[in-house]
Protein backbone atom coordinates (compact mmCIF):
# COMPACT_ATOMS: atom_id res chain seq x y z
CA UNK A 1 0.00 0.00 0.00
CA UNK A 2 1.24 3.45 -0.86
CA UNK A 3 2.34 5.29 2.20
CA UNK A 4 3.37 8.76 3.20
CA UNK A 5 6.39 7.09 4.71
CA UNK A 6 7.44 5.82 1.32
CA UNK A 7 10.01 8.35 0.13
CA UNK A 8 9.67 7.48 -3.55
CA UNK A 9 5.92 8.04 -3.45
CA UNK A 10 6.36 11.36 -1.71
CA UNK A 11 8.98 12.52 -4.18
CA UNK A 12 6.68 11.75 -7.10
CA UNK A 13 3.77 13.58 -5.42
CA UNK A 14 6.02 16.50 -4.68
CA UNK A 15 7.25 16.70 -8.27
CA UNK A 16 3.76 16.40 -9.76
CA UNK A 17 2.36 19.11 -7.51
CA UNK A 18 5.25 21.43 -8.23
CA UNK A 19 4.95 20.95 -11.96
CA UNK A 20 1.17 21.15 -12.26
CA UNK A 21 1.14 24.26 -10.12
CA UNK A 22 2.83 26.14 -12.91
CA UNK A 23 1.34 28.18 -15.67
CA UNK A 24 3.77 26.90 -18.22
CA UNK A 25 4.09 28.93 -21.40
CA UNK A 26 5.88 27.70 -24.48
CA UNK A 27 9.13 29.43 -25.36
CA UNK A 28 7.75 30.24 -28.81
CA UNK A 29 3.99 30.27 -29.35
CA UNK A 30 3.37 28.09 -32.41
CA UNK A 31 -0.24 29.05 -33.21
CA UNK A 32 -0.76 26.00 -35.41
CA UNK A 33 -4.54 25.90 -35.07
CA UNK A 34 -7.34 28.37 -35.62
CA UNK A 35 -8.05 30.02 -32.28
CA UNK A 36 -9.62 32.91 -30.47
CA UNK A 37 -8.00 36.31 -30.57
CA UNK A 38 -7.49 38.31 -27.38
CA UNK A 39 -10.28 40.77 -26.61
CA UNK A 40 -9.50 44.16 -25.12
CA UNK A 41 -11.84 46.73 -23.61
CA UNK A 42 -11.20 50.42 -23.02
CA UNK A 43 -10.89 51.45 -19.42
CA UNK A 44 -13.62 54.04 -19.97
CA UNK A 45 -16.16 53.40 -22.70
CA UNK A 46 -17.82 56.07 -24.80
CA UNK A 47 -21.28 55.51 -26.21
CA UNK A 48 -21.11 54.46 -29.87
CA UNK A 49 -23.69 55.69 -32.38
CA UNK A 50 -26.82 53.53 -32.28
CA UNK A 51 -27.75 54.24 -35.89
CA UNK A 52 -25.31 54.76 -38.72
CA UNK A 53 -25.56 55.41 -42.44
CA UNK A 54 -21.86 55.31 -43.13
CA UNK A 55 -18.85 54.27 -41.11
CA UNK A 56 -15.22 55.25 -41.57
CA UNK A 57 -12.77 52.40 -41.89
CA UNK A 58 -9.03 52.84 -41.61
CA UNK A 59 -5.95 50.62 -41.89
CA UNK A 60 -2.55 51.49 -40.49
CA UNK A 61 0.67 49.59 -39.97
CA UNK A 62 1.92 51.49 -36.90
CA UNK A 63 5.43 49.94 -36.77
CA UNK A 64 5.15 49.07 -33.05
CA UNK A 65 5.43 52.70 -32.02
CA UNK A 66 8.90 53.10 -33.52
CA UNK A 67 7.91 56.08 -35.65
CA UNK A 68 10.65 56.77 -38.17
CA UNK A 69 13.50 55.70 -35.90
CA UNK A 70 16.26 53.93 -37.85
CA UNK A 71 15.47 50.47 -36.52
CA UNK A 72 17.95 47.74 -37.41
CA UNK A 73 15.42 45.33 -38.90
CA UNK A 74 13.86 47.40 -41.64
CA UNK A 75 15.61 50.67 -42.37
CA UNK A 76 19.40 50.28 -42.33
CA UNK A 77 19.42 51.53 -38.76
CA UNK A 78 21.27 50.49 -35.63
CA UNK A 79 18.53 50.96 -33.07
CA UNK A 80 16.93 47.91 -31.42
CA UNK A 81 15.42 48.76 -28.03
CA UNK A 82 13.37 51.95 -27.89
CA UNK A 83 12.95 54.09 -24.81
CA UNK A 84 9.57 54.50 -23.14
CA UNK A 85 9.57 58.17 -24.06
CA UNK A 86 10.14 57.38 -27.72
CA UNK A 87 7.30 54.86 -27.81
CA UNK A 88 4.87 57.10 -25.93
CA UNK A 89 5.70 60.02 -28.22
CA UNK A 90 4.94 57.94 -31.30
CA UNK A 91 1.81 56.42 -29.78
CA UNK A 92 0.56 59.89 -28.91
CA UNK A 93 1.12 60.95 -32.52
CA UNK A 94 -0.79 57.90 -33.72
CA UNK A 95 -3.62 58.54 -31.25
CA UNK A 96 -3.81 62.20 -32.32
CA UNK A 97 -4.13 61.16 -35.95
CA UNK A 98 -6.79 58.59 -35.11
CA UNK A 99 -8.73 61.16 -33.10
CA UNK A 100 -8.48 63.57 -36.02
CA UNK A 101 -9.65 61.12 -38.72
CA UNK A 102 -12.24 59.46 -36.45
CA UNK A 103 -12.43 55.99 -37.99
CA UNK A 104 -15.16 53.74 -36.60
CA UNK A 105 -13.26 50.56 -37.35
CA UNK A 106 -9.46 50.49 -37.37
CA UNK A 107 -7.32 47.70 -38.79
CA UNK A 108 -3.82 47.78 -37.29
CA UNK A 109 -0.65 45.89 -38.21
CA UNK A 110 2.56 45.65 -36.15
CA UNK A 111 1.16 46.52 -32.77
CA UNK A 112 3.18 45.40 -29.73
CA UNK A 113 1.67 44.41 -26.43
CA UNK A 114 4.61 42.96 -24.48
CA UNK A 115 7.86 43.48 -26.33
CA UNK A 116 11.22 44.56 -25.01
CA UNK A 117 11.91 46.57 -28.17
CA UNK A 118 8.93 48.84 -27.37
CA UNK A 119 9.51 49.14 -23.62
CA UNK A 120 6.89 46.49 -22.79
CA UNK A 121 4.07 48.97 -23.36
CA UNK A 122 0.71 47.36 -24.03
CA UNK A 123 -0.07 49.40 -27.12
CA UNK A 124 -3.52 47.87 -27.52
CA UNK A 125 -4.66 49.05 -24.12
CA UNK A 126 -2.87 52.37 -24.48
CA UNK A 127 -4.57 53.16 -27.80
CA UNK A 128 -7.97 52.12 -26.48
CA UNK A 129 -7.48 54.38 -23.48
CA UNK A 130 -6.26 57.35 -25.52
CA UNK A 131 -8.84 57.25 -28.30
CA UNK A 132 -12.62 56.87 -28.37
CA UNK A 133 -12.50 53.18 -29.33
CA UNK A 134 -14.23 50.86 -26.90
CA UNK A 135 -13.18 47.38 -28.00
CA UNK A 136 -10.21 45.68 -29.57
CA UNK A 137 -9.14 42.26 -30.77
CA UNK A 138 -5.51 41.22 -30.91
CA UNK A 139 -3.89 38.25 -32.68
CA UNK A 140 -0.20 37.62 -32.08
CA UNK A 141 2.06 37.37 -35.08
CA UNK A 142 5.30 37.01 -33.14
CA UNK A 143 5.09 35.73 -29.59
CA UNK A 144 8.39 34.58 -28.15
CA UNK A 145 9.53 34.58 -24.54
CA UNK A 146 13.06 35.48 -25.56
CA UNK A 147 14.62 35.92 -28.99
CA UNK A 148 18.36 35.38 -28.53
CA UNK A 149 19.34 37.64 -31.41
CA UNK A 150 20.30 41.31 -31.70
CA UNK A 151 19.13 41.91 -28.13
CA UNK A 152 15.49 41.60 -29.15
CA UNK A 153 14.47 39.57 -26.12
CA UNK A 154 10.79 39.17 -25.38
CA UNK A 155 8.39 39.80 -28.24
CA UNK A 156 4.64 39.94 -28.69
CA UNK A 157 3.60 41.74 -31.85
CA UNK A 158 0.38 41.25 -33.71
CA UNK A 159 -2.56 42.35 -35.81
CA UNK A 160 -5.49 44.15 -34.29
CA UNK A 161 -8.93 45.53 -34.95
CA UNK A 162 -10.34 48.39 -32.89
CA UNK A 163 -14.04 49.13 -32.89
CA UNK A 164 -16.52 51.55 -31.37
CA UNK A 165 -19.07 48.74 -31.17
CA UNK A 166 -18.81 45.46 -29.26
CA UNK A 167 -16.85 42.62 -30.79
CA UNK A 168 -18.98 39.50 -31.02
CA UNK A 169 -16.30 37.11 -32.21
CA UNK A 170 -12.60 37.36 -33.00
CA UNK A 171 -10.80 34.50 -34.70
CA UNK A 172 -7.11 34.08 -35.39
CA UNK A 173 -6.50 32.11 -38.59
CA UNK A 174 -2.89 30.95 -38.99
CA UNK A 175 -1.02 31.52 -42.23
CA UNK A 176 1.84 29.33 -43.43
CA UNK A 177 5.33 30.18 -42.28
CA UNK A 178 8.07 31.15 -44.69
CA UNK A 179 9.45 28.22 -46.59
CA UNK A 180 12.83 29.75 -47.35
CA UNK A 181 14.37 29.79 -43.86
CA UNK A 182 16.49 27.32 -41.89
CA UNK A 183 14.69 25.52 -39.06
CA UNK A 184 16.30 27.51 -36.23
CA UNK A 185 15.43 30.89 -37.73
CA UNK A 186 11.96 29.61 -38.58
CA UNK A 187 11.39 28.45 -35.01
CA UNK A 188 11.89 31.96 -33.64
CA UNK A 189 10.28 33.73 -36.61
CA UNK A 190 6.87 35.29 -37.19
CA UNK A 191 3.61 33.32 -37.32
CA UNK A 192 1.45 35.48 -39.53
CA UNK A 193 -2.31 35.32 -39.40
CA UNK A 194 -5.64 36.62 -40.54
CA UNK A 195 -7.68 38.27 -37.81
CA UNK A 196 -11.39 37.91 -38.50
CA UNK A 197 -13.57 40.03 -36.23
CA UNK A 198 -17.36 40.08 -36.10
CA UNK A 199 -18.60 43.49 -34.96
CA UNK A 200 -21.99 44.32 -33.54
CA UNK A 201 -22.67 47.11 -36.03
CA UNK A 202 -26.18 48.54 -35.58
CA UNK A 203 -28.67 47.04 -38.04
CA UNK A 204 -26.02 44.95 -39.80
CA UNK A 205 -26.21 41.51 -38.22
CA UNK A 206 -23.37 39.94 -40.14
CA UNK A 207 -20.54 42.48 -40.33
CA UNK A 208 -16.86 41.57 -40.25
CA UNK A 209 -13.55 43.39 -40.22
CA UNK A 210 -10.75 41.20 -41.56
CA UNK A 211 -7.10 42.05 -41.01
CA UNK A 212 -4.09 40.54 -42.72
CA UNK A 213 -0.38 41.27 -42.78
CA UNK A 214 1.26 39.11 -45.40
CA UNK A 215 4.89 38.08 -45.57
CA UNK A 216 7.28 40.96 -46.19
CA UNK A 217 10.54 39.23 -46.91
CA UNK A 218 9.83 35.73 -48.24
CA UNK A 219 11.57 34.97 -51.50
CA UNK A 220 9.49 31.89 -52.23
CA UNK A 221 5.72 31.69 -52.77
CA UNK A 222 4.78 32.24 -49.11
CA UNK A 223 3.34 35.70 -49.77
CA UNK A 224 1.22 34.40 -52.64
CA UNK A 225 -0.16 31.68 -50.36
CA UNK A 226 -1.03 34.31 -47.77
CA UNK A 227 -2.91 36.39 -50.34
CA UNK A 228 -4.74 33.34 -51.65
CA UNK A 229 -5.83 32.27 -48.17
CA UNK A 230 -6.93 35.82 -47.40
CA UNK A 231 -9.00 35.91 -50.59
CA UNK A 232 -10.51 32.51 -49.78
CA UNK A 233 -11.56 33.76 -46.31
CA UNK A 234 -13.24 36.77 -47.88
CA UNK A 235 -14.97 34.56 -50.46
CA UNK A 236 -16.29 32.38 -47.66
CA UNK A 237 -17.73 35.38 -45.84
CA UNK A 238 -19.26 36.71 -49.03
CA UNK A 239 -20.86 33.39 -49.88
CA UNK A 240 -22.26 33.22 -46.35
CA UNK A 241 -24.03 36.51 -46.93
CA UNK A 242 -21.81 38.54 -44.62
CA UNK A 243 -20.59 42.06 -45.21
CA UNK A 244 -16.91 42.77 -44.70
CA UNK A 245 -14.30 45.46 -44.71
CA UNK A 246 -10.89 43.86 -45.08
CA UNK A 247 -7.31 44.81 -45.56
CA UNK A 248 -4.00 45.65 -44.01
CA UNK A 249 -0.40 45.61 -45.09
CA UNK A 250 -0.35 43.15 -48.00
CA UNK A 251 3.34 43.84 -48.73
CA UNK A 252 2.51 43.70 -52.45
CA UNK A 253 2.25 46.33 -55.17
CA UNK A 254 -0.98 47.00 -57.07
CA UNK A 255 -1.31 45.37 -60.50
CA UNK A 256 0.26 47.63 -63.11
CA UNK A 257 2.54 49.48 -60.69
CA UNK A 258 5.20 51.26 -62.69
CA UNK A 259 8.13 50.71 -60.39
CA UNK A 260 8.66 47.25 -58.97
CA UNK A 261 12.36 47.07 -58.08
CA UNK A 262 13.61 48.94 -54.99
CA UNK A 263 16.73 47.00 -54.03
CA UNK A 264 19.30 49.52 -55.17
CA UNK A 265 17.73 52.41 -53.32
CA UNK A 266 16.90 50.30 -50.25
CA UNK A 267 20.38 48.81 -49.97
CA UNK A 268 22.16 49.39 -46.67
CA UNK A 269 25.86 50.21 -46.64
CA UNK A 270 27.87 47.16 -47.67
CA UNK A 271 24.79 45.04 -48.33
CA UNK A 272 24.75 42.60 -51.25
CA UNK A 273 21.76 43.30 -53.50
CA UNK A 274 21.36 39.59 -54.23
CA UNK A 275 20.94 38.85 -50.53
CA UNK A 276 18.25 41.47 -50.01
CA UNK A 277 14.67 40.53 -49.23
CA UNK A 278 11.38 42.35 -49.77
CA UNK A 279 12.63 44.86 -52.32
CA UNK A 280 11.95 43.23 -55.69
CA UNK A 281 8.22 42.99 -56.46
CA UNK A 282 8.63 42.36 -60.18
CA UNK A 283 7.24 38.82 -60.11
CA UNK A 284 4.41 39.78 -57.77
CA UNK A 285 2.60 42.50 -59.67
CA UNK A 286 -0.36 40.35 -60.61
CA UNK A 287 -0.85 38.72 -57.23
CA UNK A 288 -3.55 41.19 -56.14
CA UNK A 289 -5.42 41.14 -59.45
CA UNK A 290 -7.95 38.60 -58.22
CA UNK A 291 -8.78 40.71 -55.16
CA UNK A 292 -9.23 43.82 -57.28
CA UNK A 293 -11.40 41.89 -59.75
CA UNK A 294 -13.65 40.38 -57.11
CA UNK A 295 -14.04 43.12 -54.51
CA UNK A 296 -14.10 46.88 -54.33
CA UNK A 297 -10.86 48.57 -53.35
CA UNK A 298 -10.84 51.76 -51.26
CA UNK A 299 -8.55 53.20 -53.89
CA UNK A 300 -9.85 52.01 -57.27
CA UNK A 301 -7.10 50.63 -59.45
CA UNK A 302 -7.67 53.06 -62.31
CA UNK A 303 -7.40 56.01 -59.95
CA UNK A 304 -4.21 54.60 -58.49
CA UNK A 305 -2.67 54.13 -61.92
CA UNK A 306 -3.41 57.71 -62.95
CA UNK A 307 -1.39 59.14 -60.06
CA UNK A 308 0.57 56.43 -58.29
CA UNK A 309 2.65 58.66 -56.02
CA UNK A 310 -0.46 60.15 -54.50
CA UNK A 311 -1.36 56.71 -53.09
CA UNK A 312 2.01 55.48 -51.85
CA UNK A 313 1.79 54.22 -48.28
CA UNK A 314 5.24 52.97 -47.35
CA UNK A 315 8.92 53.74 -47.35
CA UNK A 316 11.96 51.70 -46.35
CA UNK A 317 13.92 54.84 -45.56
CA UNK A 318 13.76 56.31 -42.09
CA UNK A 319 14.32 59.77 -43.56
CA UNK A 320 12.59 59.34 -46.94
CA UNK A 321 9.14 60.07 -48.38
CA UNK A 322 6.64 57.39 -49.41
CA UNK A 323 7.91 55.19 -52.23
CA UNK A 324 5.28 52.46 -52.84
CA UNK A 325 1.75 51.30 -52.02
CA UNK A 326 1.53 48.25 -49.77
CA UNK A 327 -1.64 48.90 -47.75
CA UNK A 328 -5.17 48.16 -48.93
CA UNK A 329 -8.83 48.09 -47.98
CA UNK A 330 -11.43 45.96 -49.76
CA UNK A 331 -15.13 45.38 -49.27
CA UNK A 332 -17.82 43.19 -50.78
CA UNK A 333 -20.34 46.02 -50.43
CA UNK A 334 -19.54 49.63 -51.29
CA UNK A 335 -17.15 52.37 -50.37
CA UNK A 336 -18.53 55.90 -50.70
CA UNK A 337 -17.05 57.14 -53.97
CA UNK A 338 -14.26 59.65 -53.52
CA UNK A 339 -14.20 59.25 -49.71
CA UNK A 340 -10.80 57.58 -49.57
CA UNK A 341 -7.74 59.31 -48.15
CA UNK A 342 -4.15 58.16 -48.14
CA UNK A 343 -2.83 60.23 -45.26
CA UNK A 344 0.64 60.95 -46.55
CA UNK A 345 0.88 63.93 -44.22
CA UNK A 346 1.31 61.49 -41.30
CA UNK A 347 5.04 61.22 -41.88
CA UNK A 348 6.36 60.96 -38.33
CA UNK A 349 4.52 58.07 -36.70
CA UNK A 350 5.34 55.01 -38.81
CA UNK A 351 6.95 53.82 -42.02
CA UNK A 352 3.39 53.39 -43.33
CA UNK A 353 0.63 55.93 -43.87
CA UNK A 354 -2.92 55.25 -42.78
CA UNK A 355 -5.64 54.85 -45.41
CA UNK A 356 -9.21 55.78 -44.52
CA UNK A 357 -12.44 55.48 -46.43
CA UNK A 358 -16.17 55.66 -45.74
CA UNK A 359 -18.29 52.55 -46.07
CA UNK A 360 -21.98 52.73 -46.88
CA UNK A 361 -23.99 50.75 -44.37
CA UNK A 362 -26.48 48.42 -46.12
CA UNK A 363 -30.11 49.37 -45.56
Amino acid sequence: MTSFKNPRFMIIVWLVVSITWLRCEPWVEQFEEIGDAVIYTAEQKSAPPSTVETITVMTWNIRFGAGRIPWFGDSCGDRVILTKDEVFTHLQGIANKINEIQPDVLIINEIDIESKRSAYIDQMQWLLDHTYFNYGAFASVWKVQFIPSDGLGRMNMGNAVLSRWPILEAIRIPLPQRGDQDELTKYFYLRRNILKVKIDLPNVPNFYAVNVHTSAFAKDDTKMKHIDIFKAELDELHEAGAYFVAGGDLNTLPPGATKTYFCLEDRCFGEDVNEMEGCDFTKEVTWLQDLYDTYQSAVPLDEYLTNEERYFTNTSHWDGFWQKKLDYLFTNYQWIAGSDSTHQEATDWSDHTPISVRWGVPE
Partner: protein
Amino acid sequence: MKISKILIGLVLFMWGIPCIMAGEINEGDVSLWSSGTAYLLPKDRLEFGIFQPAAYGLSESLELSTYVLPNILMPNLSVKWKHSAIAGYDWATRHSFYYPTPLLRTVSKKGIGGLISPEFTMPHMVAFHNEILVSKRFDPRLLVTAKAGLTFAYTSEDLDERTTIDLPLIFPRLAVFYNTYNFRMGIDLQGLIVRRWHYVVDSDIFLVPKAEENFAFEHKGLIIWRKSTRFQMCLGYKLVYAEYPFGTQWHLLLPLFDFQWARQF
Protein backbone atom coordinates in the same frame (compact mmCIF):
# COMPACT_ATOMS: atom_id res chain seq x y z
CA MET B 1 5.78 42.54 -0.87
CA LYS B 2 2.73 40.37 -1.27
CA ILE B 3 2.13 37.66 1.31
CA SER B 4 1.62 35.23 -1.56
CA LYS B 5 5.25 35.52 -2.48
CA ILE B 6 6.30 34.35 0.96
CA LEU B 7 3.71 31.60 0.83
CA ILE B 8 5.33 30.29 -2.34
CA GLY B 9 8.43 29.43 -0.40
CA LEU B 10 6.53 28.00 2.52
CA VAL B 11 4.29 25.78 0.42
CA LEU B 12 7.15 24.20 -1.44
CA PHE B 13 9.08 23.89 1.77
CA MET B 14 6.17 22.05 3.37
CA TRP B 15 6.00 19.67 0.46
CA GLY B 16 9.59 18.81 1.08
CA ILE B 17 9.15 17.98 4.74
CA PRO B 18 7.38 14.59 4.47
CA CYS B 19 9.88 13.52 1.90
CA ILE B 20 12.70 14.37 4.18
CA MET B 21 11.19 12.83 7.26
CA ALA B 22 10.70 9.62 5.32
CA GLY B 23 14.41 9.42 4.68
CA GLU B 24 16.77 7.13 6.43
CA ILE B 25 19.52 8.16 8.73
CA ASN B 26 22.32 10.01 7.02
CA GLU B 27 25.40 8.65 8.59
CA GLY B 28 27.71 10.23 6.02
CA ASP B 29 30.35 12.81 6.60
CA VAL B 30 28.62 16.18 6.35
CA SER B 31 31.74 17.88 5.10
CA LEU B 32 31.70 15.96 1.81
CA TRP B 33 29.67 17.43 -1.05
CA SER B 34 28.82 20.29 1.27
CA SER B 35 28.67 23.33 -1.00
CA GLY B 36 25.25 24.51 0.15
CA THR B 37 25.99 24.18 3.86
CA ALA B 38 28.06 25.79 6.60
CA TYR B 39 30.44 22.85 6.45
CA LEU B 40 33.76 23.04 4.68
CA LEU B 41 35.50 20.46 2.59
CA PRO B 42 38.29 18.56 4.32
CA LYS B 43 41.70 20.12 3.77
CA ASP B 44 43.11 19.35 0.32
CA ARG B 45 39.89 17.86 -1.01
CA LEU B 46 38.82 19.07 -4.45
CA GLU B 47 35.26 18.73 -5.73
CA PHE B 48 34.21 19.77 -9.17
CA GLY B 49 31.30 19.29 -11.54
CA ILE B 50 30.15 20.28 -14.99
CA PHE B 51 27.81 22.99 -13.76
CA GLN B 52 28.58 23.11 -10.06
CA PRO B 53 31.52 25.23 -8.96
CA ALA B 54 34.87 23.63 -8.29
CA ALA B 55 35.63 23.79 -4.57
CA TYR B 56 38.88 23.17 -2.72
CA GLY B 57 39.51 22.77 1.00
CA LEU B 58 42.36 25.16 1.59
CA SER B 59 42.54 24.59 5.35
CA GLU B 60 40.30 23.44 8.16
CA SER B 61 38.65 26.86 8.18
CA LEU B 62 38.87 28.07 4.57
CA GLU B 63 37.42 26.77 1.34
CA LEU B 64 37.80 28.29 -2.13
CA SER B 65 35.35 27.80 -4.96
CA THR B 66 34.84 29.07 -8.46
CA TYR B 67 32.76 28.38 -11.53
CA VAL B 68 35.59 27.17 -13.73
CA LEU B 69 34.33 27.56 -17.28
CA PRO B 70 32.53 30.88 -16.76
CA ASN B 71 35.86 32.23 -15.46
CA ILE B 72 36.93 32.73 -19.05
CA LEU B 73 34.32 35.44 -19.52
CA MET B 74 33.19 36.08 -15.95
CA PRO B 75 36.00 35.89 -13.41
CA ASN B 76 34.57 34.73 -10.09
CA LEU B 77 35.79 33.45 -6.78
CA SER B 78 34.24 32.52 -3.43
CA VAL B 79 35.82 32.00 -0.06
CA LYS B 80 33.95 30.09 2.62
CA TRP B 81 35.19 30.75 6.11
CA LYS B 82 34.27 28.50 9.00
CA HIS B 83 33.50 30.04 12.38
CA SER B 84 33.08 28.52 15.80
CA ALA B 85 29.89 26.65 16.48
CA ILE B 86 27.37 28.47 18.65
CA ALA B 87 24.76 26.59 20.65
CA GLY B 88 25.14 23.54 18.48
CA TYR B 89 24.79 25.47 15.22
CA ASP B 90 27.63 25.41 12.74
CA TRP B 91 28.44 28.76 11.20
CA ALA B 92 30.30 29.89 8.13
CA THR B 93 30.45 33.00 6.03
CA ARG B 94 30.92 33.07 2.29
CA HIS B 95 32.46 36.01 0.47
CA SER B 96 32.33 36.12 -3.32
CA PHE B 97 33.01 38.43 -6.19
CA TYR B 98 32.17 38.25 -9.85
CA TYR B 99 33.05 40.47 -12.78
CA PRO B 100 30.54 39.86 -15.60
CA THR B 101 31.61 42.67 -17.95
CA PRO B 102 33.47 40.51 -20.51
CA LEU B 103 30.56 38.07 -20.65
CA LEU B 104 27.96 40.81 -21.09
CA ARG B 105 30.05 42.50 -23.75
CA THR B 106 30.28 39.17 -25.57
CA VAL B 107 26.51 38.74 -25.66
CA SER B 108 25.91 42.37 -26.63
CA LYS B 109 26.07 41.73 -30.34
CA LYS B 110 24.29 41.63 -33.66
CA GLY B 111 22.73 38.41 -34.86
CA ILE B 112 22.25 35.08 -33.13
CA GLY B 113 23.62 35.03 -29.59
CA GLY B 114 22.86 38.70 -29.07
CA LEU B 115 21.14 38.74 -25.69
CA ILE B 116 21.79 42.47 -25.31
CA SER B 117 21.36 45.00 -28.08
CA PRO B 118 24.69 46.04 -29.65
CA GLU B 119 23.59 49.66 -29.42
CA PHE B 120 24.73 49.60 -25.78
CA THR B 121 28.25 49.49 -24.36
CA MET B 122 28.41 47.55 -21.13
CA PRO B 123 30.52 49.31 -18.49
CA HIS B 124 32.90 47.66 -16.05
CA MET B 125 30.98 46.15 -13.19
CA VAL B 126 31.77 44.00 -10.22
CA ALA B 127 29.65 42.49 -7.46
CA PHE B 128 30.62 41.43 -3.94
CA HIS B 129 28.38 38.96 -2.22
CA ASN B 130 28.61 38.22 1.50
CA GLU B 131 26.47 35.66 3.21
CA ILE B 132 26.08 33.83 6.47
CA LEU B 133 25.38 30.09 6.47
CA VAL B 134 24.06 28.29 9.50
CA SER B 135 23.73 24.52 9.47
CA LYS B 136 22.34 22.06 11.95
CA ARG B 137 21.56 18.39 12.01
CA PHE B 138 18.39 18.44 14.07
CA ASP B 139 18.22 14.76 13.58
CA PRO B 140 20.65 12.50 11.78
CA ARG B 141 18.04 12.33 9.00
CA LEU B 142 17.82 16.04 8.44
CA LEU B 143 20.53 18.56 7.67
CA VAL B 144 19.17 22.09 7.44
CA THR B 145 21.08 25.14 6.29
CA ALA B 146 19.77 28.65 6.46
CA LYS B 147 21.55 31.44 4.65
CA ALA B 148 21.23 35.17 4.28
CA GLY B 149 23.39 37.49 2.27
CA LEU B 150 23.92 40.97 0.99
CA THR B 151 25.39 41.84 -2.41
CA PHE B 152 26.98 45.15 -3.33
CA ALA B 153 27.71 46.12 -6.89
CA TYR B 154 29.84 48.76 -8.52
CA THR B 155 29.54 49.91 -12.11
CA SER B 156 31.95 52.32 -13.80
CA GLU B 157 29.00 54.04 -15.51
CA ASP B 158 25.26 53.98 -15.00
CA LEU B 159 23.63 51.05 -16.74
CA ASP B 160 20.86 51.66 -19.24
CA GLU B 161 17.68 49.93 -18.04
CA ARG B 162 17.18 48.54 -21.54
CA THR B 163 20.24 46.28 -21.19
CA THR B 164 18.55 43.85 -18.82
CA ILE B 165 18.40 40.20 -19.88
CA ASP B 166 14.84 39.32 -18.96
CA LEU B 167 15.32 35.61 -18.37
CA PRO B 168 14.91 33.44 -15.27
CA LEU B 169 18.05 33.02 -13.12
CA ILE B 170 19.85 35.75 -15.05
CA PHE B 171 17.60 38.75 -14.41
CA PRO B 172 17.57 38.42 -10.61
CA ARG B 173 21.34 37.91 -10.49
CA LEU B 174 22.14 40.93 -12.64
CA ALA B 175 19.53 43.16 -10.99
CA VAL B 176 22.06 44.19 -8.35
CA PHE B 177 24.10 46.07 -10.98
CA TYR B 178 21.15 48.33 -11.73
CA ASN B 179 20.32 48.91 -8.08
CA THR B 180 23.61 48.92 -6.12
CA TYR B 181 22.64 46.26 -3.60
CA ASN B 182 20.29 43.38 -2.98
CA PHE B 183 19.48 40.75 -0.40
CA ARG B 184 19.35 37.02 -0.85
CA MET B 185 18.19 34.45 1.64
CA GLY B 186 17.27 30.84 1.55
CA ILE B 187 17.11 27.44 3.09
CA ASP B 188 18.67 24.13 2.04
CA LEU B 189 17.58 20.70 3.16
CA GLN B 190 19.49 17.59 2.38
CA GLY B 191 19.90 14.05 3.45
CA LEU B 192 19.77 10.40 2.62
CA ILE B 193 16.74 8.79 1.00
CA VAL B 194 17.85 5.21 0.79
CA ARG B 195 21.19 3.50 0.25
CA ARG B 196 23.13 5.67 -2.19
CA TRP B 197 20.24 7.95 -2.99
CA HIS B 198 20.23 11.41 -1.51
CA TYR B 199 18.18 14.53 -1.97
CA VAL B 200 18.71 18.27 -1.92
CA VAL B 201 15.83 20.70 -1.70
CA ASP B 202 16.40 24.41 -1.54
CA SER B 203 14.54 27.67 -1.80
CA ASP B 204 16.05 31.10 -2.33
CA ILE B 205 14.55 34.54 -2.32
CA PHE B 206 16.09 37.60 -3.97
CA LEU B 207 15.05 41.04 -2.80
CA VAL B 208 16.13 44.20 -4.58
CA PRO B 209 14.80 47.06 -2.44
CA LYS B 210 15.52 49.86 -4.93
CA ALA B 211 14.02 48.16 -7.97
CA GLU B 212 10.49 48.09 -9.35
CA GLU B 213 10.97 44.41 -10.10
CA ASN B 214 12.23 43.53 -6.67
CA PHE B 215 11.38 39.91 -5.99
CA ALA B 216 12.47 36.52 -7.23
CA PHE B 217 11.96 33.07 -5.81
CA GLU B 218 13.90 29.99 -6.84
CA HIS B 219 13.34 26.44 -5.72
CA LYS B 220 15.40 23.43 -6.62
CA GLY B 221 14.87 19.73 -6.10
CA LEU B 222 17.61 17.21 -6.80
CA ILE B 223 17.90 13.49 -6.49
CA ILE B 224 21.51 12.47 -6.06
CA TRP B 225 23.09 9.11 -6.67
CA ARG B 226 26.31 8.99 -4.69
CA LYS B 227 28.57 6.27 -5.97
CA SER B 228 31.34 6.98 -3.48
CA THR B 229 33.08 9.84 -1.78
CA ARG B 230 34.65 10.55 -5.17
CA PHE B 231 31.72 10.63 -7.56
CA GLN B 232 28.06 11.57 -7.58
CA MET B 233 25.47 12.46 -10.18
CA CYS B 234 22.25 14.34 -9.75
CA LEU B 235 19.01 14.97 -11.58
CA GLY B 236 16.25 17.41 -10.74
CA TYR B 237 14.44 20.59 -11.60
CA LYS B 238 14.42 24.25 -10.84
CA LEU B 239 11.32 26.30 -10.35
CA VAL B 240 11.56 30.05 -10.72
CA TYR B 241 9.08 32.80 -10.05
CA ALA B 242 10.26 36.32 -10.61
CA GLU B 243 9.26 39.85 -11.36
CA TYR B 244 10.54 41.11 -14.70
CA PRO B 245 10.12 44.42 -16.52
CA PHE B 246 7.14 42.89 -18.37
CA GLY B 247 5.46 41.42 -15.28
CA THR B 248 5.74 38.20 -13.34
CA GLN B 249 6.30 34.73 -14.67
CA TRP B 250 6.86 31.17 -13.56
CA HIS B 251 9.47 28.97 -15.20
CA LEU B 252 10.14 25.31 -14.69
CA LEU B 253 13.63 24.41 -15.81
CA LEU B 254 14.01 20.75 -16.65
CA PRO B 255 16.09 18.71 -16.45
CA LEU B 256 18.70 19.90 -14.05
CA PHE B 257 21.61 17.49 -13.98
CA ASP B 258 25.26 17.35 -13.10
CA PHE B 259 28.14 14.96 -12.65
CA GLN B 260 30.54 15.70 -9.85
CA TRP B 261 33.91 14.29 -9.02
CA ALA B 262 36.16 14.65 -6.01
CA ARG B 263 39.77 14.04 -5.24
CA GLN B 264 41.79 14.11 -2.03
CA PHE B 265 45.32 15.45 -2.48
